[in-house]
């Protein structure tokens, strides 16, 4: 009994409620005539799509920079990478690889500047990150109007100005990962490549935190004064974490696009960070501590709810409340994390 109680305390009440809710949805699926395998395939597609974006939050949480509400900066780097790749006319695997490489370069540059800024506002990172993210999205919106892209796929056809709001990657690298090694699962496609890619990137991050530098980063997040007394350059560690986070964000959005099929410019990246933040918090991460388990669990639970809620609600109540539930669950989760008494409050 005590064991169960301990487990409950460790697992956290909200996470438990969400897990039970999701389980309930899955159990109801057969009764309501919702295709179970179809739903499952959908969930996996979304996991592959969003996983890296959630993963991108880990380095900054671990180094004590808090929840990266400025993930949109990484997303912008990804958009730049993707548009440049299309502009150059690379198609297929090479287009995808080039997009990622280019986005990593942009991500590194943006991340560095962003990290330097965050180092000067220690303690107020989250709110500043949010608004720095928002304003960068708007600057980029101006840039999308002004940048001299030529590719007819991307610019408005009828003499409009700048790039289109959504650009299709059909014919470039749509589903390039999703289709890789994919197989049919009870009549539905399983996005093997995307899942594998997500696992691969997770493995790299896992390894990173087992290196000397990753260990130092964790210590900086856990207790910066301790880390400093042990000869660690706190600011450097924080900048590295922000750079990695931004680069992962850039990679994440390209993986997202190949699955989604479109590049969304302008306002598109504005709220990109919030679902990712909600997911990792649902996975049990705190404002100062996150693990890969949190990422996996979070992305599964969150994307599971997102997929299953509308299906079941539509089938049972003929009522689409999924948007409202998504808003309440994800923001409720962030609120919970913010108001939770954390031990390390630096």
């Amino acid at each position, binding site marked *: 009994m005590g064991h169960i109680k301990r487990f409950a305390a460790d697992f956290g009440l909200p996470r438990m409620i969400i897990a039970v809710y999701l389980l309930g949805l899955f159990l109801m699926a057969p009764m309501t005539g919702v295709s179970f395998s179809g739903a499952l395939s959908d969930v996996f597609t979304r996991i592959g799509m969003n996983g890296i974006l959630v993963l991108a939050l880990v380095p900054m949480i671990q180094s004590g920079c808090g929840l990266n509400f400025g993930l949109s900066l990484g997303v912008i780097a990804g958009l730049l990478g993707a548009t440049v790749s299309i502009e150059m006319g690379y198609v297929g695997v090479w287009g995808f690889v080039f997009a990622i490489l280019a986005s990593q370069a942009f991500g590194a540059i943006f991340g560095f500047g962003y990290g330097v800024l965050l180092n000067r506002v220690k303690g107020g990172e989250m709110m500043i990150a949010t608004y720095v993210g928002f*304003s960068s999205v708007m600057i980029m919106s101006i840039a999308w109007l002004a940048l001299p892209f030529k590719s007819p796929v991307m610019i408005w056809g009828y003499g409009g100005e700048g790039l289109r709001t959504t650009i299709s990657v059909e014919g470039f690298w749509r589903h390039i990962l999703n289709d890789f090694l994919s197989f049919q699962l009870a009549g539905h496609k399983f996005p093997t490549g995307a899942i594998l890619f997500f696992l691969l990137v997770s493995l790299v991050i896992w390894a990173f935190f087992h290196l000397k530098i990753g260990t130092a980063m964790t210590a900086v997040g856990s207790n910066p004064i301790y880390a400093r007394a042990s000869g660690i350059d706190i600011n450097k560690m924080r900048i590295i974490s922000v750079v990695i986070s931004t680069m992962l964000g850039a990679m994440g959005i390209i993986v997202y696009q190949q699955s989604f099929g479109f590049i969304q410019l302008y306002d598109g990246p504005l709220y990109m960070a919030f679902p990712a933040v909600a997911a990792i918090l649902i996975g049990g991460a705190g404002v100062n501590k996150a693990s890969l388990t949190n990422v996996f669990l979070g992305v599964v639970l969150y994307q599971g709810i997102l997929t299953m809620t509308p299906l079941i609600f539509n089938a049972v109540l003929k009522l689409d409340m999924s948007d409202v539930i998504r*808003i309440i669950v994800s923001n409720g989760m962030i609120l919970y994390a913010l108001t939770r008494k954390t031990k390390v409050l630096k």
Partner: protein
Amino acid sequence: MKRLRLFFIENAVVILFVILISIAIPASGLPGKFLLQEILTRLGRSSFLVIALLLPIMAGMGLNFGMVLGAMAGQIGLIFVMDWKIVGIPGLLLAMLISLPISILLGWLCGSIMNRAKGREMVTGFILGFFMNGVYMMFALYAMGSLIPVMNPELLLSRGYGIRNVVDLASVRQTLETFIPLKVAGLNIPVLSYLFIAAVSAFIVWFRKTKFGQDMRAVGQNRAVAGAAGIAVDRTRIIAVIISTVLAGFGQIIFLQNLGTINTTNSHEQIGLFSIATLLIGGASVTEASICNALIGVILFHLLFLVAPMAGKNLIGSAMLGEYFRQFVSYGVIALALVLYEWKRVAQDENSRARLRGGRTDVP
């Protein structure tokens, strides 16, 4: 000379925007009289909302991103009034009365949650706004017309429950502006709106002079000291947020009656952003804001609002550019204010460290 420099540094944001606008106005080619009329109208429309932000700043809780909760309460009040067909000024007043208990409840909730997240009130209020938006949508889109009776079928979606996306406020539209008609030099002056703003300003001025106000200032400057002196810190903070939320509710009603329509699901969303950006453009900071900042902010922000698209179009040939620029300014000025605030805080920490060194300063 030194004083002049100090003046420029302290009012850097305002001066920057004055310069920006003085370039953009000629570029936009909009006539001066049109701009003047618009500003007069918008002062009446938006100032109340901006002033609603003042008390939490005084209580050291920063920019109250949770003000959208008040805006929701205001909208609920208006929706009920529309449903019951209460028209004109009585309708507006009744909407305010309906919003009052809802605002108090939401303000109490917001304040309590912020008390649990001391030191990150802003991000908490910001997320709380999103969260309550979900609850509000649940209320407006699902509960209204099913759990809560709605008499007026025109308000409901065709499916029979849930409020329509757009609610027409024809029966109260601009009643404040036209109640006491006054025309000066061909410009319409919304007298009653201004009276409302004067009233809320007077309230704020008076409130600062009360013990409540004094306690809020004390709590805002140093929670620990205020607490040690026996001031109920948490309670005082909650009261600041409640008043702010109530005023935001009233402000939203005034704002919407001027526009004439409610966008049920998103009229309130941007209000927090715009009001906060407005206040900051008026020269306020995270720790200090005055009624003056609010009014200057409204004038500058809305001038920019008006001229940016046209200026963008005339200068670069793109109206969208001006629009994005305007949004960038809204977000950017908040980011800037927050950065400045954190820098100042870090500098202050350093400073207080230095003071601990003691009276003698013969350290080489």
